[in-house]
Structure formats: C-alpha cells, structure tokens
C-alpha cells in the first residue's frame, strides 16, 4: 500500500519566491474551500427574514437569533432531527460492522477454496461494483418490501448485499498477498478454520479493515437514494433524506432550520475526519488503486 503523506516540509528547505507565491495562492483557494461551511454556519444563526434579505450578510442584532433554529429543528416538528441522527448513526455503525465481519470471512473463504461456486461468487462480486444503482433500484426496493426489510435493521442486510462487491474485492486482494504457509502452520498446530481466521488472518488484515471501513462509512453515511427507496419514511429518515425532504417542501421552507441541521450533520463528519485523517486518506488511495 502506498504511504500517502505530502512531503514533510523540510525545515531547512529554502522557500524560493515562487514557492512563497504558491503558498499565498493556495491559501486564498483554501479560504474558498472552507467558505461554504462558514456560509452555512453563519446563516444558521440568522432568522428566516434575515436570510431572505441576503445570504451573504453577517448576522446583526436584528437578524441574529442564536440557537433557536437548532432547538426547533432538533426537537420539534413532525419529525425531530435527533431521531434522524440516531437512525443515520445506527445504520452507519452497524452496517459497516456487519459488512466488515461478513465480507472479510467470505473473502478469505473464497480465496482459499478452489470450488467453482466460490469462483462464480467472487466474479459476481467484482461485477456488482460496476452496476449503477438505477439498474436495480426498483426491483431492490420491491424485494426489500416483500421481505420486510424496510426498517433500520433490515436495511443492514441490503447494505451488506449491495456493499459486498467492493469489500470482498478489497479483502480478497489482501488475502492473496498473505502467505498460505502461516495458515497451514496454524492448521498443523491444531487450529480449526474459525480459530485460524480470527486468531491469525484477522489481525494481519487490519490495514484493509480500516480502508474498507472508511470507504463504506463515507458511502453509507452520505447515501441518499438507497435508504430513500427502502426505508419506511413515515417512521425512519436518514440525514440526507431529512435535508432533501425539508428542501423539497416548497413554500414553507424553513431555510434557517435547514442550515442549522446541516451544521449538525457536518460536525460529526468533520470531527471524524480530523480524528482519523491519516487513515481516511490512506484508505481512499488504497480503494482507488485497487478499485
């Protein structure tokens, strides 16, 4: 796996004039990059009247309304946002956990077995990565409906099925690089397949676990169409569904509340990003190079 790290700015490396100019140019671009986030943050503190007067104006005494939008959006209305956050959180955490455990086991078995069925399953997994979601969306929603998978627990099964392709592919790629002698040695020492997998193979696969985990987390947390079509929306909403629902209700759009909810939904991601930035960037590169 390529180790991605922007070259450490060497202390003694002389900064030429060109490089200084580049630093300034990139700083300006960086400001434009983070500006939309501050734009949302600023507007979330303004009243709706203040927003409609001009979205770029800083809040003043008249338009500033503090955390009122946060409180209204979070706890009031037909569908309080804290339930949405809980729902999104539940689906993401357990969906990723389920994918990691099941697909790593599956990938290991598929790679270590020579049966024709295993080969077929493996190639189907690779094939599924190419298929656009629109191809299966209608039939998948119907199937999920028939099998009563329209709740946050049931949707985990759908995510496992639809996310299996990438995960199995990445785990298989790693299993191929593990020397089989290690497992044979464990076998000779009397460890069964379960013990071999959980005691030996799983610890070796840790880097791939992190990569797959990051990629699947980014996907599930931000996914819109799949939960939109599958979940029973009278009871359950995920964050993207909720935002789109508020945005789509024309006429009575409470812009200030949407801004507040966007801030609330971005904050966990930004914290997550800064906490494991190194792994995220490595995971992305590993996924891109193999995918």
């Amino acid at each position, binding site marked *: 796996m*390529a180790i*991605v790290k*922007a*070259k450490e*700015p060497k202390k003694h490396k002389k900064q030429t004039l060109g*490089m200084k100019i*580049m*630093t300034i140019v*990139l700083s300006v*671009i*960086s400001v434009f*990059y983070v500006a*939309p986030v501050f734009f949302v943050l600023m507007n979330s503190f303004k009243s709706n009247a203040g927003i409609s007067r*001009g*979205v770029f104006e800083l809040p003043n005494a008249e338009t500033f309304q503090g955390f009122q939008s946060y409180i209204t959006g979070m706890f009031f209305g037909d569908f309080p946002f804290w339930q949405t956050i809980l729902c999104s959180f539940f689906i993401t955490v357990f969906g990723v956990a389920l994918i990691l455990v*099941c697909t790593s*086991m*599956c990938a290991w*078995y598929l790679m*270590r*077995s*020579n*049966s024709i069925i*295993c080969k077929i*399953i493996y190639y*189907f997994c690779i094939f*599924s990565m*190419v*298929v*656009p979601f*629109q*191809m299966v969306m*209608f*039939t*998948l929603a119907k*199937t999920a409906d028939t099998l009563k998978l329209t709740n946050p627990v049931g949707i985990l*099964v*759908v995510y*496992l*099925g639809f996310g*299996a*392709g990438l995960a199995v592919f990445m785990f298989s790629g790693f299993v191929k690089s593990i020397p089989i002698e290690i497992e044979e040695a464990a*076998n000779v020492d009397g460890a069964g*397949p*379960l013990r071999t997998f959980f005691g030996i193979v799983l610890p070796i696969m840790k880097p791939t676990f992190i990569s797959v985990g990051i990629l699947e987390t*980014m996907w599930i*947390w931000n*996914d819109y*169409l799949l939960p939109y079509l599958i979940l029973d929306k009278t009871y359950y909403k995920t*964050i*993207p569904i909720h*935002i*789109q629902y508020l945005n789509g209700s024309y006429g009575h759009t409470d812009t200030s509340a949407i*801004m507040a909810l966007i801030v609330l939904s971005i904050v966990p*991601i*930004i914290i997550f*990003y800064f906490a494991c930035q190194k792994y995220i*960037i490595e995971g*992305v590169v590993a996924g*891109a190079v193999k995918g």
Partner: protein
Amino acid sequence: MFKKRNRLFFLIFVLPTFAAFIIGFIYPFFSGIYLSFCKFRTVSNAQFIGIDNYIKAFQNEGFLQSFWFTCVFVVLSVVLINLIAFAVAYILTLGIRGSNVFRTVFFMPNLIGGIILGYIWQQIFNGILQKYSTNLALNETYGFWGLIILMCWQQAGYMMIIYIAGFQSVPHDLYEAARIDGASKSQILTKVTIPMMAPSITICTFLTLTNSFKLFDQNLALTNGLPGVVGAGGTTIYKTEMIALNIYKTFYANQNSRGIGQAEAVIFFVIVVVIALAQLYFTRKREVQQ
C-alpha cells in the same frame, strides 16, 4: 485450504454475505433485466412485450436530452477536475510550507454528502444570482456551470490525493539523472513525471468519468433538472437533468412508464460497463508495456 466437502464452513463463512448478496444484488439485477422487456406497474403484474420499451426509450426526448447533457458535463468535468487536481498535487509535492494543511482542506468536501453539498451550493448560487434578479431554476446555463463548479470543488481534492501518491512513487534518481543530463524543469515534467504518472492518470480519469456519469444526489439537490420546457411530444423536458435523475423520474413520476425507465436503466448500465471495460483494457495494456 478448504476441500469441497467442507459444507459447514461454507455455511459459516460465505453464506451470510452470499444470502445478502442475492437479496441485494443478484435477484434485483436479473429481475431488472427481465422487467426491461415487460410492461408493468408492480413486479407481480408484468407482461412480456419484447423490445418495445427500448424503442420507446430511444424515442423519449427527455432521455435523449439528459444523455447529451450528461455527455457534455462528463467531458468538461473530467478535464477540469483532473487538470486542477494534477496541478495542485504537483505544487503540494514541491515542499512548500503548509502542504499538509492544504491537503486536509482540499480533501474535506468529499466527506460531505451530495445532497447536503447540493443544497449548500444552491443557496450560494441563488444568493449571488438574486442580485441579478434571476436564479438557478430559470436558466439552464447557470445550472450547468453550477454543477461543474460543485463537482470540481468536491472531486478535485479526492483526485489530488491519488495524484500526490503517484508523485511520491516516482523514484528520485530519475529526476537526478534528468537534471544531470541537463533537462529543464518543463522537460522533466513532460518527459519524466507525466509518463511515470500514467497509472495515476488512468485511475483518476476513470474515477471521475464514472463518478460524473453516475451523478445523482448533487443533480437532484442543486437543480432537480430545472428549468423544464414543454417538448414537441407534449412532455416536459428538463434541461439540466442527467441520465441517473432522468431514469429515476421516469420510474417514479409516472407509473405507466416504469418499463421504459427500466429499459433506460439497462442502457445506462451497458454504457457504464463499456467504460469499465475500457479502463480494464487501458490498465492491462499498460501492464504489458512495463
């Protein structure tokens, strides 16, 4: 490791994923292909009607419009994103001050979901356009460029990360050798760096290609296909609708056109497979050369 008679371990290791895979992919995929040849409203009342849906799909003005819109969008966004990402990655590997901070900032938009990004940029663009008393929903040119700006803003950071990894994998002695031979900076870039970066360029090109082609969330949240005009056939044609959104609307806005929607989805799928095969071809070709 496993012999064929090892049924028990097949059940433990493979079955959970395989069962979910059948529910989540294999069954929906094949029944989707079958339904594209049927007239249906729900799965249970499907009637086989042959290739009628495909003929209608190719006559559907909205679909053709979205197809061309998508093509133009894809070409422009792929070129722009890759140029920006390549340039920024190049600058960041020169060793300028604050490289790590810039890298962190440029990658950040990728973590925010398409729906939320689309909404944020909709507010920003409408805020700007308000001053000229217009908005995104009134003119397709604004919608198109809005989508381009949004995609560049989001994807350039991702591709930049891959390009940085590529730059760092170029062996240093190559640069030294070129310098000793008297190559200028621009010669080093075009004769050493870019050829050595070919794998990264292939990966990024195809990633941006498929991402732009399959774009849905951003399109839905930013313009939702607006503005719409009434076409020759009496149907409304949405000017900034991309293929994925068009298929979605053909399915769910009108129950009677579900068969056509499914046929369009199959066409879409075939196009994506062709792109993927092209990628495979280019990757293999390069591996042979090396």
